[in-house]
């Protein structure tokens, strides 16, 4: 598919919307199984609990993931994106406050 190398990308496209995008067509696929980490499992389970408790829908999760800037989106792992979206959603809805979140993070001065 060498003829696609210089094909223009549509600037109106959102960065997560990557079906058929020319610049990724030569990207190899890592077909090896990867084990989930404890962090991955906890984020996944917390996401489900937020849905079950009516605190965040899957669509809100996706919207929050899509709002992560492109460079960060590609740098972060799958569940690293999730925890950022979940946190952003909880802050936006006022379920948690920014001040208390900062106070709970290590190295942050209250």
């Amino acid at each position, binding site marked *: *598919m060498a*003829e*696609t190398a210089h094909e223009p990308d*549509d*600037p*109106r*496209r*959102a960065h997560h*919307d990557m*079906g*058929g995008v020319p610049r990724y067509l030569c990207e190899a696929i890592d077909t090896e199984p990867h084990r989930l980490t404890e962090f991955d499992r906890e984020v996944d389970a917390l996401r489900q609990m937020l849905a079950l408790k009516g605190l965040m*829908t899957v*669509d*809100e999760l*996706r*919207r929050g993931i*899509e*709002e992560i800037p492109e460079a960060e989106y590609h740098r972060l792992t799958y569940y690293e994106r999730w925890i950022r979206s979940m946190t952003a959603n909880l802050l936006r*809805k006022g379920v948690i406050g920014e001040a208390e979140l900062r106070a709970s993070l290590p190295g942050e001065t209250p």
Partner: protein
Amino acid sequence: MTLAPGTAVRVRDSWPEAEGPAHIRTPHYLRGRNGTVMRLLGSFPNPEDIAFARPAPLRELYHVAFRPAELWPGGGGDELLVEIYEHWLEEPR
């Protein structure tokens, strides 16, 4: 009005994500493209609204077939099936 299997449709050539915050389940590569309704899958609350915690009206969801050769000359598989909501479908031009 429910679309019957075999109905020719066009995906709206609309780009809300370029104009402001939006959450869209219609892939960019289908905008403005012609397809054929395969079947109605059901009705679901519009995710474009759920994503913003707005009241979400039910929308019909269709499985629509596209010809990859029309999307990507020289590439693609032989057939492509994608779920598209009714409000993204219009009459073909």
